[in-house]
Every structure is written in C-alpha cells, then in structure tokens.
C-alpha cells in the first residue's frame, strides 16, 4: 500500500451552512510532493484542517497510513506535521524552547541532538536562544517549520508556505522542501502561485469551490496544457473564417486583420504546416506570423473557469 493519505467523499460544511469542501476524493502517495493549487477561498486550508484535526468532518472518511483520522487520531497525528497559513507563535518564548515544546506535545521524548540538527538545517541554530518576537518574518516561518518537524513526522503539510515571502526566502523554502522529500517525507503544500507548483511538485491538484478539479503528474499536466498561440497577420482583411479553415478553430481579431491559432507543443503534430498549406490553397496570404507562449497562469485560469 503506497497511499499515505486517502480522502474519501469528504464534505465540510461550516456552522454558517457554507459548504467549503464538496465530496472531495484525494489519494496521496508516500514520499511525493503534492501541490494543491487554487485561488483564495477554494477550500485548501479547510481540506488540510480536516485531515489534521483542526476542523470537524461533516461527512466522508479520511485515512492516514490506513488509519481513520478520527478513531485513531493519536496514531495518525503522530505522523503529521502542520505549518498553518498564518504565523502563530508565542512571542515571548525562546526559539529552542518553542520547538522543544512542540515535540513534547506530540508525546515524544526530548532529543536535543535531533532538535539542534533541525535548527541547523533551517538556519535557526544561531537564533536558538532569541526570543521569537525579535525574529524577522522569514525566520518566524522557519520556526513554524521547525516546530512542525520537531516530532519527526512522515507527512508535512505546508499551507501557503511562501505567501508574502520574498524571493530569496521562497527559494530557500523550496530547497528545504526538496531536502525533506529526499529524506522520505511526504509533502502536501498549498499555493496560489502556479510557478511554485511547477518548481517543486511531483503532482499538482487543482481545487476550486471546494472541488478537486483535477490531479495529475506535473509533467503530464504541463505537456497537456502547454498551449501556444500562433498569431497570423493577413495581407487582406477577412470578414469570416473560410469553411476550409473551420477545423483549425481560428479566432479572428483586429477587425479581421489577423487571426489566432492555438496549438499544443506537447503533441507530435502542431498542425501549423497544414494550416499554412491550406491557407495557401485557398489563396489567403499572410503578412507576418508570431507565436506566444500561453502561461501556466492562463491555463490555470482556464481550468478554473471551465
């Protein structure tokens, strides 16, 4: 059994009757990095909260390592580390004490060697005796990660780990995540930055309005979705697309002076050659052509709109 998390028909309805997660199914494999992508309010945090025990479940079943997160909450929670979206730290506590406290909450014996290694890895070792209040925002985020990792979890949830974080720190964060993956930790992160998902995830899930729209290998998704646009400027204006060219789904723009053709670079044939030769056959002359890459951002928007 390689699934470490199995979410079945999960529904989460808040007290105000708002349904934030609608019949969601999700399987996460051991050792992978999953990026859950979705706009604000999509239900990403809610999903994580139900898995980690912060929110009750309205209906459905969540299993972690084959165990029910409600019935066997002690065993499932031991496996999980959570870094929530918002910074939440005791301001007057020392870094090291705060991290040790987290480990103890999970019922683990003190292990100073492990904690020191962890702090070193997160570049917090020099700050270990500092009061949390005195740290920068980036450092505080690292403390949150250290706390989440303090009990050696096998699964790490990172809720928007890089929201509002500068470029430097974002890169650091990515390398930390990759390092953890190499150590065998399963990582689930949420983000609304598509580049982030593209940079580090093995699989990408897209969530909107409480539904999982798709979940796919990142490579597959990008291949399938890497659509380019060919803009063809014409010598003569066209009123309508000629019937012979209908099959190319062209889109007239600039009052008929140009049209757009969408093609997929992931496929073996782009269709450009045959389009150009068909145009030639019916006597439409081109003036200029240019190609544009569709950004992942647009793909994302497109999927969400559909």
């Amino acid at each position, binding site marked *: 059994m390689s699934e470490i998390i199995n979410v079945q028909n999960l529904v989460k309805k*808040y*007290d105000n009757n708002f349904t934030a997660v609608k019949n969601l199914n999700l399987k996460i494999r051991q050792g992978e990095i999953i990026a859950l992508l979705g706009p604000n309010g999509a239900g990403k945090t809610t999903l994580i*909260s139900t898995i*980690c*025990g*912060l*929110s*009750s479940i309205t209906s459905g079943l969540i299993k972690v390592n084959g165990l029910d997160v409600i019935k066997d*909450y*002690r*065993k499932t*929670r*031991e496996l*999980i580390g*959570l870094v*929530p979206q*918002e*910074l*939440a*730290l*005791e*301001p*007057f506590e020392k870094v090291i004490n705060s991290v040790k*406290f*987290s480990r*103890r*909450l*999970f*019922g*683990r*014996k003190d292990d100073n060697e492990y904690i020191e290694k962890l702090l070193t890895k997160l570049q917090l070792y020099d700050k270990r005796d500092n009061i949390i209040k005195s740290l920068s925002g980036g450092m505080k985020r690292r403390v949150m990660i250290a*706390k989440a990792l303090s009990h050696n979890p096998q699964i790490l949830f990172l809720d928007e780990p890089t929201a509002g974080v500068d470029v430097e720190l974002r890169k650091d964060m990515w390398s930390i995540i990759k390092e953890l993956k190499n150590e065998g930790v399963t990582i689930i992160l949420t983000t609304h930055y598509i580049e982030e998902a593209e940079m580090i995830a093995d699989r990408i899930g897209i969530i909107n309005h409480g539904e999982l729209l798709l979940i796919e290998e990142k490579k597959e998704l990008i291949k399938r979705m890497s659509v380019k646009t060919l803009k063809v400027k014409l010598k003569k204006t066209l009123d309508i697309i000629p019937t012979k060219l209908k099959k190319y789904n062209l889109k007239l723009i600039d009052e008929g002076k140009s049209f757009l053709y969408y093609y997929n670079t992931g496929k073996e044939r782009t269709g450009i050659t045959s389009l150009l030769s068909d145009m030639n056959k019916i006597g439409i002359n081109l003036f200029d052509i240019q190609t544009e890459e569709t950004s992942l951002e647009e793909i994302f928007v497109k999927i969400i709109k559909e």
Partner: protein
Amino acid sequence: MNIRGIHAIYRYEMNRSFRTLIQSLVSPVLSTILYFIVFGAAIGSRMDNISNVSYGAFIVPGLIMLTVQMQSVNNASFGIYFPKFIGTTYELLSAPLSFVEIVIGYVGAATTKAFSIGLIILCTSYLFVDLDIKYPFFMLCFLLITCMTFSLLGFIIGIVSDNFEQLNIVPMLIITPLVFLGGSFYTIDMLPPFWQNFALLNPIVYLISGFRWSFFGVGDVPIFTSIIFMLIFTSICISIIWYIFKTGYKIKN
C-alpha cells in the same frame, strides 16, 4: 494517555507565571497583607470576636478563598485564551492529545498556582494573627477542590470569550462581587434579615462557610450543605467542559 503532552502544557503554563512572577505571586500576597492591615489590624481591633475567634483570624479563610478564586479564574481563563488569541491552538489540536488531556494540562497548572498562592497567604497570615486550624486535612482538600473548580470555570470563560473584554467582564462583573459579598469579612447573620436571604443565593457563601468551618469548626451554614454545594458547582463546570469537548464549541470549526 499522552503524559508527556500534558506535562508539556503544564510546565509551559508554570513557566509563564515564573516569567511574570511579580504579577502572579507578589501582587496577590501584597494585597492580602493590605487587607490584614486594614481589616485585621485597623478595623479588627475595634471589632468583637466572632464565634470566639478574633476578627483578624476570622477573615483569614475568607481572604484565602477570595484570592484563590480570583487567581484560579484569571490564570485558567488567560492560559487558554492567550493561545486562542495568538493562534497557537492549532498546535494543541493537531497534536495527539485528547481534549481531556489539554484540560488537565491547563487546569492543573492554574490549580497548582492558585493553591500555592493560597498556602503562601496562609503562611503570611501567621505573621499577623494566631491561628489554630481545627481540621487541617479537610482544609487542604477543600482549598484544592476550590482551586480546581474555579480553574475549570476560568477555562470555560477563556474558551467562550472572543475578545479580551469578554475575558475580563465575567470575572469583574460577576465573580468579584459574588466573592466579595460571599462573607469573607462578615458572617451572614451580621446582615439585616432581608439581605441574609439574598446572601444565601450566593454560591460563594457556601464555599467560604465550609472553608471557615475547617478552620474554626463553625460556619454560616452546616458543613454538609457546603460540601454538597461544592460538588454541584464542580459537576456543573465539568458538564460544561464535557459539552465543549463533545461539540468542539469555539475550539473546532
């Protein structure tokens, strides 16, 4: 049972009060000393003995009760409210801890603090008056249960409060008056008849009376009434906590 987890919360809460030692220890002791000077020495010297006990000694059990009740409520309510306020409850909820274990950690620490303060005040009062405690073991048990029950009450207030105002308002507007009018400084029969009936509606009267009984062997109401009241009060608090636990009220979404 996640003993280490409970211990972590307990220790953390105890450390928090060591960080604010002045506030958590010195100030209740200081205010008690002031009470002794004002009520015990200054006014008390002109008061008759009450049930053969000097006025200075008479107010000791009431003063201890008054202080530990306020301390328990304040400590426990703040203890759980603060993590809620700064958002660190996520850690408690995502840890392999049951709600009962969380309550034991917080309420246990608040109880310990209030109980220690009670003992310190008791010791301090020996500097001012002669005391001869009739039922010391019962007295300690009664003190401990009072601290625990009021810590449970404080925990409930901390969970239910949505802001600092609410956190302060219940202790200030309800508990303080009840405690002050609960007979710390007088016996109920010193009141005019109308107010006597009124006073008997105040649950704190039964607790102070019971505690005073353990010192001097006399109280405003029979000791069994006090014990039964204490048990009812404790059960109500435990039931409310149980309800919060069952429904996740104000803790889980």
